């Protein structure tokens, strides 16, 4: 259980491990889909965990552990309204997350590959794939926005 171990070894989030998607709010958990729920090896609410320590930071929402065959990986999910007005927020949050992984969460960083996702809150997704905004997101490694994240 590498994801759980990574939680335990990371300052600030040590006590925040939850099984499955239990770290996510009910509404947000509905936006994650996984055919085999056993692949979900746990989750953390990064935003809540680091709220006191970094109250002004552009904190990311969630980390989720995902077992793919023999490999366990960490995916990072931000649930946020999907319009062009949110682009700069999302870019700032991703930058914060990547910095945090580099400087304070090396165990998570080892588990993280291609796993940064923007999931939309309720309401329209107002960013089309061929827009400059969508290209901007792709160029920093962020997938989405999507209404539902299907994890495989």
């Amino acid at each position, binding site marked *: 259980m590498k994801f759980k171990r990574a939680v335990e070894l990371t300052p600030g989030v040590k006590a925040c491990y939850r099984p499955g998607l239990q770290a996510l709010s009910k509404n947000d958990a509905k936006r994650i889909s996984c055919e085999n729920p056993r692949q979900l090896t746990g989750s953390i609410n990064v935003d809540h965990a680091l709220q006191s320590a970094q109250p002004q930071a552009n904190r990311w929402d969630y980390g989720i552990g995902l077992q793919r065959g023999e490999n366990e990986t960490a995916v990072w999910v931000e649930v946020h309204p*999907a319009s062009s007005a949110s682009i700069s927020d999302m870019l700032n949050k991703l930058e914060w997350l990547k910095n945090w992984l580099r400087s304070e969460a090396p165990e998570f960083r080892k588990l993280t*590959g*291609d*796993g*940064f996702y923007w999931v*939309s809150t309720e309401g*329209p*997704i*107002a*960013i*089309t*794939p*061929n827009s400059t905004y*969508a*290209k901007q*997101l*792709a*160029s*920093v*490694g*962020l*997938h989405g*926005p*999507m*209404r*539902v994240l299907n994890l495989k």
Partner: protein
Amino acid sequence: MNIASLKLERIGQIKTADVTFGDLTVLVGPQGTGKSIFLQFLKLAADTGYVHDQLRKHGIDWNRSLPEFLDVYLGEGMREIWHNGDSASTVTVDNQLIDATDLAKPLHRSKKASVFYIPAQRVLSLANGWPRPFTAFSSEDPFAVRDFSETFRILMEQELGRTETLFPKTNRLKKEYRDLLSQHVFGGFGLRVDRHGSQKRLVLRHTDTSKPIPYMAWSAGQREFVPLLMGLYWLMPPAKVKRRGEIEWVVIEEPEMGLHPNAISVVLLLVMELLWRGYRVCLSTHSPHVLDVVWALRTIHQRNADTTRLLDVFEVGKTEPLKRLAEEVCKKETRVYYFDRNGLTKDISSLDPGSQDVSEAGWGGLSEFSGRVNDVVASVVNQR
């Protein structure tokens, strides 16, 4: 003719194409999925009398035979798209099944056209810089191209032939449109009627004294656009009437052909003008740019937003005439249908980029490739 819906079954590649029309209806889908056939059947269902009359006037006789009629109407060999027997082809207009044999029979019908059809092959209407008459085409060429070319020819000879300057022309198109077309399509050149020996021809000319640029030296986009412009001149008469004759519908196949996105924007603004004039418009397209405008229009309409936001889409000034246009056009109903490779149609009108239905999220394939590219790029960026 007021048609609310059209359904074709088992015609060519089409298994079932079932479309309920909006004020603006857009058809998307890969090549060879039946969009053009569908639009030509719309024309035929609405204007059977006109089509028969025009064919007969030019000496064409199909002997009341449906297969022969389909060859002369759709083009040589197109009789093969029609099936008989147990899995017979059908045409249903407003939930009423048409007796297909009637399409080839000379019944008592109106000979006036209600659908103005601007075909994908409109570039063929200009030969050496002058529109070709109906009879200059082969009898095996599709009616839509021949009829459009003939209309273009009549427009030139009866309304515009004595004019030297066709564009910009002060009594045709609002100044805002003329300025945009000048900038994005003609690059500051004017469209003129010129003489080469005794033969009139259309040319581009930068100034009154500069050398004329003949048709074959125009850009591909200019060659595609000029017949479209003439079609729009036909539809927007200079008098204070909003519409031409009995025309209710405008069909434009691939309005984006050969054009840069800036020029496509201007064409779509002219489509908005057509809607404002009360025409029902039907487009087929391979351009996500077209659906971008439809998406914006739908969103403004659904959210009861400030209608002048439509003018922001086109980056045009908020003049009183354009504000009135935007207010009217934002009330119009839009529909988008995807013609898929299985011969079926799907209503993807919501154009939701977040839809779980790939055909809707990917706008019938028009933005699917971009989405895939974005995912690949994001994955590559995340590789270490």
